[in-house]
């Protein structure tokens, strides 16, 4: 069956009928266009609910100032020296902790009728998940900018200059984006946003604290040191420090890139499968 369009030149007494007649279907949009549309949606939601940005602005600021002055004197002799090593770590930590909210948001939204409508559209379906993940990159970048900006005010001067800063931050964002796929999987599995939040805490706390963010692993008991050594966050912190201070960290960067590829390769398909699941 096809819809016979009413000629638009004919005057229509009824605006609804003429609106229906002019609703011709454009060419089917490509994957990129649809992904961008979903990304636009996610950015609009941030714009309407700016409190969503608290966790990527206020939280990193508190972490940075708190840890620099709390531990700086004791662990590195001075806050200035400590900042050199702790800032890249705080950057990794705050951005990593922020990623779980992706899963919480997805869990909250997925029950909405609006997702039924999206799933009944003739579009490339992964876009409904990838679009918001692209918008999340904006959130992560905000978090990174806050940490680096505040750090600069406190006296952080990376040896490798702005390029090293960008390379380090870029690696952190890539890691965060890849980790988000883990959270989208859990977000689709969890029954309630609260359970998703709990799982998120359960994973991110040990992942970020049992690492070399705050202390030199050599000072730890042997078993804990080994835990720290295998933690991907440790490699990410080492790689980020190295990139920012111009130290050779090619091996660590390689490990981080492999970890990212692994997370996306496993959890992106899992997420898509769970997304298509009936609810």
């Amino acid at each position, binding site marked *: *069956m*096809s*819809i*016979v369009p*009413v000629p638009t030149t004919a005057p229509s007494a*009824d*605006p*609804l*009928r003429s*609106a*229906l*007649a*002019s*609703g*011709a*279907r*454009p*060419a*089917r*949009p490509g994957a990129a*266009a*649809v992904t961008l*549309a*979903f990304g*636009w*949606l996610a950015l*609009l*939601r941030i714009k*309407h*609910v700016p409190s969503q940005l608290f966790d990527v602005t206020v939280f990193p600021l508190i972490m940075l100032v708190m840890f620099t002055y709390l531990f700086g004197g004791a662990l590195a002799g001075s806050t200035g020296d400590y900042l050199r090593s702790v800032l890249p770590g705080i950057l990794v930590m705050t951005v990593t902790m922020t990623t779980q909210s992706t899963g919480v948001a997805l869990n909250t939204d997925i029950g*909405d*009728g*609006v997702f*039924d*409508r*999206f*799933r*009944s*559209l*003739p*579009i490339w379906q992964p876009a409904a998940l990838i679009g918001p993940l692209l918008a999340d990159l904006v959130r992560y970048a905000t978090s990174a900018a806050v940490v680096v900006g505040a750090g600069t005010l406190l006296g952080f001067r990376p040896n490798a200059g702005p390029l090293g800063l960008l390379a380090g931050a870029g690696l952190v964002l890539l890691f965060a984006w890849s980790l988000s796929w883990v959270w989208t999987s859990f977000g689709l599995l969890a029954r309630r946003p609260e359970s998703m939040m709990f799982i998120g805490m359960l994973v991110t706390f040990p992942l970020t604290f049992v690492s070399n963010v705050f202390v030199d692993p050599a000072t730890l008991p042997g078993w804990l040191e080994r835990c720290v050594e295998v933690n991907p966050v440790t490699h990410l912190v080492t790689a980020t420090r190295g990139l920012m201070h111009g130290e050779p960290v090619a091996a660590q960067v390689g490990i981080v890139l492999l970890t990212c590829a692994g997370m996306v390769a496993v959890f992106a398909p899992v997420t898509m499968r769970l997304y298509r699941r*009936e609810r």
Partner: protein
Amino acid sequence: MTTYAILTEDLRKTFGGTVAVDGVDLAVPAGTVYGVLGPNGAGKTTTMRMLATLVRPTSGRARVFGHDVAAEADAVRARISLTGQYASVDGELTGAQNLTLMGRLLGHRHRAAVRRARELLTVFGLEEAADRQVKRYSGGMRRRLDIAAGIVVTPALVFLDEPTTGLDPRSRGQVWDAVRALTDGGTTVLLTTQYLEEADRLADRLAVIDRGRVIATGTPAELKQSVGAGALRVRVQDADRRDEAERILADVLAQPVHHDDDPAALSARLVDPDRAGAALRAFTHAGIEVSALSVGQPSLDEVFLALTGHHARPDTAEEPLS
């Protein structure tokens, strides 16, 4: 030859051990409004979700314009639009942003999508609320936006899941106008409803669903004929005299009389509307004071009673009497 928008054969859906849809056969001619009538939990929404490719049938077949809903989901999706029971729009976004998003997802460039959004907002009387967040809309406004979002691109088949449940009469009238306009343009509409009046006003054909099965199909006139011309409802002043009133009513109408949950109310099928007057006279004669007496279309519950021999579930909303 008739073109069918929807054809299903023995469509079934089981969730765990629960049978939600138990062998549904539907034939919906293209260009018509088809009503699916039934109480909550009858399987209306699950049937619609299978047809809209959101839920896979456990067994049986369903075709939308000749395309199998399971094997050719994309071809089906390119012909339908779904407006769910719970508003299928984003409450955080404004009305204009919601419609613009739909336009972009359907293939419009941003500017064309914005233009189409403004056009539809005007048509649905929402231009003043265009830049307000949808969560601040009234129920009627939200529902209108919902329907607008479903026709950003004119679909061949529109699914409306209980489009007027919870709406005030004015908003309900607006939704009905929109449904009629859709069919004038050649679009097929499948709507689920709990209201016989709605089905009667809009649908060309109806299927009555109960416990996952189609128990009757036909035009609204055929359906009502099978149930009776109408119903007489009586409320007596003194609930203690209901039994007495029941005997009188049964006598005058020569029909079985039903008790309602209300201890003072009675209802009965009314084959000949003139007998309503006779019933009132008989009550007066017996000295039974009547606080309310009305003649109306059979309610959904009465249709159910007539078709199935059991009451529709108690949470079923009754058709308002006019």
